[in-house]
């Protein structure tokens, strides 16, 4: 029971895109301890969802997942499809930004919630229903005995998100993968949903992977963080270390471009110039070089190394140590 709940090694995922087969996750490794929350951040298109879907082996054909994913001692990539189905939804569950991705609009919530526990836990009809009502109550749906027979569209956005969480949690998974669960929600409802995830963790010790593009969400939720860019891990650290002393120009850019309401800002916000590169046409060298304030000639020529700048604190950068030491601070407003 002491080993990590999940360990991912050199994960590489390819997708079939309009531009042919594209590698959208390129060498991601991490370990998640039991009861821990790992935040995965990065701009859109950096491969966060692809990396998360890979864990569930939900990558559409002819996409490919390489490397190794070990869940509680089991190598997931060597399982048969039916063995994988037994783990998915029961021991590992996923929630999405868009609840319609996992809720069927034509079926009552009660049908969808009871189906899983009847399948995975062998519950009878009555038992499954009372369990489902309990789950809805747990996630804060008022009047669950009545609401359980509603269809998904009869719930507001925030409530629908809760229904999806109830469904993901109904078999008591050991690992919850939440892919931008609050991105489409108001801050007030976001706070409720994040509170709910915190509470569940405390109560049942669930391990969580929380994907978000909002570093503010990471700051309040995650123990450790992975910063992704162009399918790669650009920085990996404890949340505290990352915020206290980031070691990668990209992470620094993300941190600085977020307005901190607690501080007075005069003048423009820090901005990272340009856009993330197209996964199908990555430049040689560092994929961030074109947008980077620290870049030198070598960055456009050679892929950067992954350097341990401090214990358990890694940065993918030719100048990781220099950036970590603060020798070349980012320009005040970005490039």
């Amino acid at each position, binding site marked *: 029971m002491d080993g990590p709940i999940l360990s991912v090694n050199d994960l590489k995922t390819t997708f079939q895109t309009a531009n042919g087969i594209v590698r959208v996750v390129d060498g991601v490794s991490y370990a998640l301890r039991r009861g821990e929350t790992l935040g995965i951040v990065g701009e*859109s298109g950096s491969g966060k969802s692809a990396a998360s879907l890979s864990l569930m082996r939900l990558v559409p054909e002819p996409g490919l997942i390489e490397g190794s994913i070990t869940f509680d001692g089991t190598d997931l990539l060597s399982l048969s499809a039916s063995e994988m189905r037994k783990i998915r939804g029961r021991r590992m569950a996923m929630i999405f930004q868009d609840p319609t991705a996992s809720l069927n609009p034509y079926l009552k919530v009660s049908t969808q919630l009871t189906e899983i526990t009847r399948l995975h836990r062998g519950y009878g009809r009555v038992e499954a229903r009372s369990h489902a009502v309990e789950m809805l109550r747990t996630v804060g749906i008022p009047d669950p005995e009545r609401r359980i027979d509603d269809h998904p569209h009869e719930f507001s956005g925030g409530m629908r998100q809760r229904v999806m969480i109830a469904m993901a949690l109904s078999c008591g998974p050991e690992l919850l993968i939440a892919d931008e669960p609050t991105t489409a929600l*108001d*801050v007030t409802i976001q706070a409720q949903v994040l509170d709910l995830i915190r509470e569940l963790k405390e109560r049942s010790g669930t391990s969580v992977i929380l994907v978000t593009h909002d570093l503010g*969400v990471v*700051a*309040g939720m995650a123990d450790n963080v992975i910063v992704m860019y162009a399918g790669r891990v650009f920085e990996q650290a404890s949340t505290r270390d990352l915020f206290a002393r980031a070691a990668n120009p990209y992470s620094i850019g993300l941190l600085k*471009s977020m307005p901190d309401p*607690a501080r007075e800002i005069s003048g*423009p916000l820090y901005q990272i110039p340009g856009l993330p590169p197209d996964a199908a046409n990555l430049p040689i060298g560092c994929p961030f070089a074109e947008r980077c304030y620290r870049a030198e000639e070598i960055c456009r020529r050679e892929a950067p190394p992954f350097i341990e700048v401090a214990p358990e604190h890694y940065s993918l950068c030719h100048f990781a140590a220099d950036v970590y030491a603060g020798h070349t601070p980012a320009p005040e407003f970005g490039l």
Partner: protein
Amino acid sequence: MTTDQEPLISIRGLTVSYSSGRGLIGKRHTVKAVDGVSLDIAEGETLGLVGESGCGKSTLGRAVLRLTEPTGGEVLFRGRNLAELSNSAMRAERKGLQMIFQDPYGSLNPRMTVRQIIEEPIRAFRLAGCSDIGARVRELLETVGLASGHLDRYPSEFSGGQRQRIGIARALAVEPEFIVADEPISALDVSIQAQIINLLKRLQAEKGLTYLFISHDLRAVRHVADRAAVMYLGRIVEIASGREVYSDPLMPYTKALISAVPLPDPNAEARRQRIVLKGDLPSPIDPPTGCPFHTRCPYAINDCRYVVPQLVEIKPKHHAACIRINPENPDIDTNAKAESGATSIFEHGSSGSNGSIRIDPSKSA
């Protein structure tokens, strides 16, 4: 920005009702999406408008531009009442009043190239001769930070942030004075949000633009807006400078909104006191009586269910609508402690049919 001069935009008692056929027993319902809003916006100012989805921000923004017909109240643009203008006069006026939308995907015609999208308003208002129009389009594109190589591409070939730049270029094409920016950054990554905020601020400085900046993100409003108005169920419940609304909020609702904002600092996050609001925004079809916030307010007392609070100047240039605070006692926490145990603090005016009391919101602020 000075406050003594005549405001560029003056909104007085603006009300917008939608009638919706959907109801429990098939009855026609009216949704008061905007309920007696009064606001002034000075020339060159950015007024931020925040509130949860469904509180009426977009409706208010559209009604100010008369893209949605108000059911009551008026909007003055440089002192002229927009509602009294004929359709053709309004069309001419619309040139000065533009809108930028949240959804950079839905708001651009997918079958038009960038060039056509930006040319359209220039042609419609005959703002450039045929020979100048190409130069004008290129200039606009450059202003918003796009390359002229992008001119003959279609919206689908751009990222969200780039599409937002195209929408901004289109709005700027007619040289407006006033822009309603309706959640212009909500659909974008944080890094791209910073780019768009900086662009909007630079354009404002260069062209003296006036903005109504709508957002559900207080972090952005705090940074962008000179003054911020907080909206709840169709009403403005607090208004002050952007800084003061954030650092010294008076309304329990505003406090709750702020406490829900994620802070980019793990230490601050670990220390902070959260006020997590229960439940969703109530349905505007059947809004709560009295203070619209009383169903979720941790400080609500019995009177809050009956009395409609007025927007009152509690501190200099800081207005709030809550019966538990007043200029002498602006801090609701202190008041709540002092009054605990007290019963009704309010003498009832007239009683409504169900025993509740409604007091007409008079025009204020």
